[in-house]
């Protein structure tokens, strides 16, 4: 999905809103015509595939629409149904659970990795290796882990056996399913997150560490007193961007059940929307559920945009 695209932009936007850069060229020209021509493809793409479908989506959420008939207006019925729909609330709940496990594990490990790299090595090979899972489709990652966690033949369960543990990890276990899905995706995105944080750490002036070392500070102390505080703006940004991506979990749960729908414990909100729209053809209701996601992600994105503008790192 393109959803998580903004991950790349950990702070590129800090250049936005720099004062004093807006002054025009010394020789004024009339750019009116050429300006709109430059914008033409993007405006067409925007109107046809972003603006129009957005308006249409809002309209659908107030209709009864099965793809076969024409949408018919039903007022707020879909939203009323939403409030009493246990499956919807369950979807929200398990998505929340997923987001918490995913974001916490991924961010903590990535932060640790970034700090280690920062203090130890600039190796491109190491960074490239950590980036590999990010290049791989989530579908492939889901498949791979479904195989590794196969109850009979999976290598991970083989290792658990060797360790003398009785547990069999499986995506079909109501207890383990969601933590497993979350950890699989953490596995896939930790390297990427670590590289973003690492890039942020590179901005911290080296002399601060040298000074602290002369004062006899240990590595842990330096991490707490120098790295963490100075990284805060970038860390916050990476966190929000990861959150936005995390709410849109879909591919993994769509794949690890071999094409069958996920168990209720992993039926996340994105899947629920998909199911309502394309399994049951309740387009109107699906659009209403999607509206809820719009609100959640809209708030998060607004926070992100604010940070992009405001957070010219503390280093200035």
């Amino acid at each position, binding site marked *: 999905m393109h959803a998580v695209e903004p991950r790349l932009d950990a702070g590129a936007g800090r250049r936005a809103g720099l004062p004093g850069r807006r002054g025009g060229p010394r020789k004024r020209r009339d750019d*009116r015509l050429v300006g709109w021509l*430059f914008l033409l493809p993007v405006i067409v793409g925007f109107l046809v595939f972003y603006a129009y479908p957005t308006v249409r989506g809002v309209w659908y959420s107030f209709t009864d629409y099965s793809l076969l008939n024409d949408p018919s207006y039903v007022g707020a019925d879909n939203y009323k149904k939403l409030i009493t729909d246990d499956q919807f609330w369950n979807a929200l709940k398990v998505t929340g659970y997923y987001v918490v496990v995913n974001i916490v594990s991924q961010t903590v490990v990535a932060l640790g990795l970034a700090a280690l790299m920062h203090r130890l090595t600039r190796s491109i090979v190491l960074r490239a290796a950590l980036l590999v899972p990010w290049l791989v489709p989530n579908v492939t990652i889901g498949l791979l882990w479904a195989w590794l966690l196969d109850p009979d033949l999976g290598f991970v369960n083989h290792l658990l056996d060797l360790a003398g543990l009785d547990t069999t990890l499986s995506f079909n276990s109501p207890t383990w399913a969601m933590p497993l899905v979350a950890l699989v995706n953490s596995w896939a995105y930790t390297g990427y997150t670590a590289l973003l944080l690492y890039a942020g750490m590179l901005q911290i002036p080296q002399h601060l560490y040298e000074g602290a070392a002369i004062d006899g500070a240990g590595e842990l102390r330096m991490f707490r007193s120098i790295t963490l505080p100075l990284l805060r703006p970038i860390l916050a940004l990476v966190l929000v961007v990861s959150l936005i991506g995390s709410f849109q979990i879909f591919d993994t749960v769509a794949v690890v059940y071999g094409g069958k729908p996920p168990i209720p414990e992993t039926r996340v909100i994105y899947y629920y929307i998909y199911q309502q729209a394309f399994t049951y053809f309740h387009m109107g209701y699906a659009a209403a559920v999607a509206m809820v996601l719009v609100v959640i992600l809209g708030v998060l994105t607004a926070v992100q945009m604010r940070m992009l503008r405001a957070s010219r790192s503390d280093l200035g």
Partner: protein
Amino acid sequence: MFSGLKIGRGVTWFALIAAVVLTIFPFYWMVRTALTPAADLYSDSTGLWPQNPTLINFARILGLVDAEQARAAGGSGAQIDFLRYTINSLVYSGLIAAVQTFCCAMAGYAFARLRFPGRDLVFGIVVAALMVPPIFTLLPNFVLVKQLGILNTIPGMVLPSLLMTPFAVFFLRQFFLSIPRDVEEAATLEGISRWGMFWRIVLPMSRGPLITIGLTTIVWSWKDYLWPLLVGKGESTRVLTVGLGVFLQQSPNRAPDWSGLMAGSVLSILPVLLLLVFLGRRLVQSMNFSGMK
């Protein structure tokens, strides 16, 4: 505070190497399984190297052997043609990345440098689209593509993201804002047209960020699943991710054809891995983009 530097270093290196092993080993296992004959999986599922390594799994998912042989090697016998899916994936992601990057660069340049009324308002509206999650536009876009009668065609699949994403416009505008105006001003004095300026001066200067955004777009479109699943599930337009999903569904009543699936998985990684090998430095360093002041 003490700093047991030597021990500390050892432990840190160990942690970093452990992280790399944890990252890479599952992929090794993917390759290992792809090289294992399907019939051996039960008896030979734990060794680090298969007892009878074979390339038959690749041959059969690429359609290089006939149905009879494929069934004998553990396939379901249903038609599966990963060669075509790979080509479709390449066309899909390549087309989107090339056209989208170009169109967004044009717009980004106009938003950053050209002066005309309404510019900032339009920019604000385009960027506001970042707040709309893809699933929301996905439902109506599906309806639109269906109404246009272009389901299961390449145009139907690429159109929604072909011309723009709000993020690419935003990203490239920020970049164009950050480059010095001197060169452009010198060229202006020589009476160059706006288009000439963009095409001959600004684009070549901006190779780095353009490749960065292009690469990122390739990777993301390569990974796309839900959209191509909805609009391009037909055999002729199926991309790799969708092909893998369909392949998995073909064995619902017995154990999945893991060696075939892992062979397909390897194919779904190979091209992006090549990208990493040849452009790794740029890709890894583009993560430092944020570090540019």
